[in-house]
């Protein structure tokens, strides 16, 4: 009977606080991850939105191609009408 009482005391004084402490730690860690994940989600959403302008690179590529073609034509004309240095 005495041992049983000692076991009850250990259960209430040692086991229960340890269990609560460990579970509280797990819950705190899990809850601390939530804001970080939300922040990451917001950041990736903003990054994805920023990349919406990448489609304009095709326009830039086309304009660069036209510009270089114009420069090439102009350079060809200059090559004809201007004498070489030597």
């Amino acid at each position, binding site marked *: *009977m005495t041992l*049983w*009482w000692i*076991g*009850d005391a250990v*259960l*209430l004084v040692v*086991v*229960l606080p340890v*269990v*609560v402490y460990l*579970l*509280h730690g*797990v*819950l705190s860690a*899990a*809850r601390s*991850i*939530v804001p970080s*994940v*939300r922040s*990451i*989600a917001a950041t*990736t*959403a903003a*990054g*994805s939105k920023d*990349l*919406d302008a*990448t489609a304009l*690179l*095709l326009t*830039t*590529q086309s304009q*660069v*191609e036209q*510009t*270089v073609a114009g*420069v*090439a034509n102009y*350079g060809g004309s*200059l*090559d004809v*009408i*201007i*004498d*070489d*240095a*030597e």
Partner: protein
Amino acid sequence: MVVLAIGPGTVTVVALLLIVLALVYYLVSTIMALSAITKGLDEVIVNVTEIIEKSAPVNDVVDAINGQLDAGVDLLEGLLVKKAGLVDAVGLVDGLYPGAAAAGFRNFPESTSIEAPRISEVYTKGTLTLARLGREAPIAAANPAGPVLRNVEGGSLAARLLYPSVRHTAPPELPRSPVIGTDAPVQYEQRDDIGAPRKRLPASRVGGG
């Protein structure tokens, strides 16, 4: 009487019940937190997938743009060196963009070792700008077969002489202003009608009829 009813078995049951309650509370809370994490990570995965899809063609497009710009640079450098010569080309670029001669031309590694002539101190900047336009520039009006236009020792005078201005180069060739007066080298005959009586009009017109 109540105290006597509580035995070690009752305490054990109560302790186990408390442990189970603690387990239920914390585990349910943890499950809810993990659920929120999972939901957030799902959003992250969707956004990251969008980023990957949107950025996939960027490398190819940028490489193509860089290739075309490289071709343009090669063309312009080659044309400039061909037309102006390597030394003058370096001086011309350095005159327009001071300090650029140190970098030299990309396709002409030897250009980095050239001491850039101080073209900008002889040509005015406006002249250089116009010279880039081709033969319509005033500098292009000079005969290319003539003497060199640059005079590295002349300073601003050399730059001024680049413009086809007769006032600066050959004032004696201008027509002289006429000399008037009695001492004028050229004397003109006096007109007979000056000082003579005014000619009378015909009588018919004077009479009105």
